[in-house]
């Protein structure tokens, strides 16, 4: 039943092509892609082939997976989407950062919220040193300065062991 109704609609559905920075093309229905504000504006301007210079194939595949799933969001499958989201944010930090950059560039608000929240949750219990590694930040404090900053907020550095792992 579902397939017959969708096939009768396909004649009306507008298809869009997304092109990743690696040159791979993905054809999608407009109704799916419209979640992404950047593309929505391009569609309104009449584009149907959309080159995404800042998004590689690997990231774009993940993002399309997300958009497809969330396009079928209804009242009844809330639990399913929740589980999907949980799985979606399980990758390495580097993958998550790539996704978050892409989501920011494409203006997919739901995905942005999901990723930022999951990254924030994952680093909650990390040590300062681990966070430097994860975000690739070089420590420009002198040991004395750092000691001073830590001393200023002693209570924030207390409260059990912090996680030194990088994943």
């Amino acid at each position, binding site marked *: 039943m579902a397939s017959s109704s969708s096939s009768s609609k396909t004649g009306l559905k507008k298809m869009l092509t997304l092109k990743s920075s690696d040159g791979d093309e993905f054809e999608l229905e407009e109704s799916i892609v419209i979640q992404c504000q950047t593309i929505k504006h391009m569609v309104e301007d009449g584009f149907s082939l959309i080159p995404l210079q800042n998004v590689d194939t690997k990231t774009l595949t993940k993002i399309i997976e997300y958009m497809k799933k969330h396009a079928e969001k209804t009242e009844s499958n809330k639990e399913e989407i929740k589980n999907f989201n949980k799985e979606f944010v399980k990758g390495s930090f580097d993958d998550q*950062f790539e996704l978050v*950059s892409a989501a920011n560039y494409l203006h997919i608000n739901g995905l*942005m919220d999901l990723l*930022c929240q999951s990254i924030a949750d994952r*680093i909650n219990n990390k040590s300062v040193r681990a966070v*430097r590694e994860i975000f690739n930040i*070089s*420590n*420009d404090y002198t040991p004395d300065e750092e000691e001073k900053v830590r001393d200023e907020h002693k209570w924030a550095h207390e409260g059990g062991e912090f996680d030194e792992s990088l994943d």
Partner: protein
Amino acid sequence: MKKKQNTKAKENPNLSQPQIPQTKKNASSIHKMKRFEKILENPDQENAGTVVVSANCSLIVAPLKNKQKTKAKAIQEYAIAESLPQELITKIFQRSATKIILRFLAVSKKWMYELTSANFIYTHLSTSPNAILTRYLLRDRNYYLQK
């Protein structure tokens, strides 16, 4: 990262130079390239790694064909790590509790600057109403920026 670059330095003079056409137009880029090779060969320089990667795209990688892939990958990895802009880091920390933000002030001076900026504090305030952060950070900001 640094190790990779040191090996690159050894390969570069042999592989890249014969392939460059000696036209007038290229003279300046060859000159530049030699300069970067010098940096490459000098591992003592603190910034050797960064200079090389940004320069690589146009000056050093281009003439090398067989090594191109691994280098391109290295550059890409570097670019990812380097390109998570402060804007996004801010967006992530907007969702963190006050205590966690205060702990990560010790990460670097740049983070101290960003996470105590008025902009960050007010947005954090609007997403998670918590007067403690405002009070703590505004005091700290004055303290650190006076120095």
